[in-house]
């Protein structure tokens, strides 16, 4: 059982000033997840009659993309996983007892309260074209649509994005390019996505810009922070799709 000095961001609302608050959390087992450690902190706070810290979480299985947090200066903390799948042994084994917890920070992700940020900008980007709206008919036989294995693999890898926003939080420019490119690339590699590929990339890029996300300068920090190992190869694909769309407009 270990004790940790937690510095965590507290902010009452979107327009109020925030600051770091210090807490000591005791009785933490290495097998507890990071979020369970925060639950522990919140129980302590409630016992003291104080407001618990607000943070996002849902499935706690690493598949929903609800949890966020920048822990000791890294999206989702020191391991390449989601915050819910980060365990306290990670800190125990490295003898780290000081832990800084902050919300994902970006203009496109305004803070709602404490460590909870509004990631609905991502929803609006998906609404701008991250879907197939042409009629693809009834479910065909599994082998009716021939898709080459490399394309299927690339599409699947890109589709693994859970939209958590760790890429934006890690990017020096708060760019959403990895997120946007994952969806563009996913659909660009499948026949169902072909009909709307031009409109999709243009519309999603426009919305990305309008939501106030930055531009990509190829630092690669997004890929390094991604709990689902989305590759920056997808960004090259987005760029190709963008050029194809512009050429498609001219011809």
């Amino acid at each position, binding site marked *: 059982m270990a004790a940790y000095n937690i510095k965590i961001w507290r902010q009452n609302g979107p327009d109020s000033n925030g600051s770091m608050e210090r807490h000591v959390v005791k009785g933490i087992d290495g097998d507890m997840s990071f979020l369970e450690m925060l639950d522990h902190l919140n129980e302590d706070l409630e016992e003291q009659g104080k407001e618990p810290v607000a943070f996002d979480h849902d499935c706690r299985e690493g598949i929903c993309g609800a949890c966020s947090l920048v822990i000791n200066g890294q999206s989702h903390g020191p391991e390449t996983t989601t915050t819910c799948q980060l365990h306290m042994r990670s800190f125990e084994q490295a003898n780290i007892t000081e832990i800084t917890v902050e919300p994902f920070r970006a203009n496109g992700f305004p803070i709602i309260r404490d460590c909870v940020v509004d990631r609905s900008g991502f929803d609006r980007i998906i609404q701008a074209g991250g879907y197939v709206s042409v009629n693809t008919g009834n479910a065909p036989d599994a082998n009716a649509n021939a898709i080459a294995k490399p394309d299927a693999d690339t599409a699947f890898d890109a589709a693994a994005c859970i939209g958590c926003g760790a890429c934006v939080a890690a990017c020096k420019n*708060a760019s959403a390019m990895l997120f946007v490119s994952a969806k563009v690339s996913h659909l660009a590699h499948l026949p169902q996505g072909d009909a709307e590929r031009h409109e999709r990339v243009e519309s999603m890029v426009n919305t990305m810009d309008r939501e106030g996300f930055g531009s990509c300068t190829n630092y690669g920090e997004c890929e390094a922070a991604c709990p689902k190992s989305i590759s920056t190869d997808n960004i090259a694909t987005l760029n190709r799709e963008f050029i194809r769309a512009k050429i498609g407009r001219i011809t």
Partner: protein
Amino acid sequence: MSSNSNNSLPGGITTVGAKMLVALTGIALILFVIAHMLGNLQIFLAGEQLNEYAHKLKSMGPLLWVARIGLLSVFLTHISLTLVLTRRNAKARGNLTSPEPQIRITGERYINGYSYKTATTASRFMIHTGIVIFLFVIYHLMHFTISPEHPTPMPADSLIDVKKMVIDGFSNSIISGVYILAQLALAGHIYHGASSALQTLGLRTDSTKFGVSKLGILLATLIGIGNISIPVCVMANII
């Protein structure tokens, strides 16, 4: 939050489109830098090779001005777009309204900054190396083109003895030092820029991945060594 008109770039261009223009102009500038370096390296050849080359360039007449204006517009497009994008990116990162003094001082959005896992130093200091190159280009033009410090006339005609001008200039260790530092900044800029430009233009694929990732280091090394060799060899009395 959303629909913030301040987020858009001038002329309704998207950030992706703007980046592609930065990449294209960057590639054009790298090609110019390579041609410029190959021209300059003629200083190592015997006799009047460099002077003949320089005089040939000068005698191109209106074509020279077409090249100069073309180069200047590429240069200014590259710079103005990156400045606009850099400012926009700083805005996208967001400003914290916080009483925490350290946040205001460092301008970081995280208390102790973000712990980078993969970003190279060259990639993180592109705007800084870019500014150094911009200032250097102004100095370089003043030094050798607009008001050459050593306009020694050639005996045969009134043209400038370029070779002598370069050797005289680089005999001054401060001037050589400035040139060498600027070339290191240029090498750093190209190290990230060359590979990054191809990624931005969507040219990095499974089959080109290796080449694209190594192009930056290759060009940076060749251009760095090629350009720095001139002041170093002048100072070492090799030329």
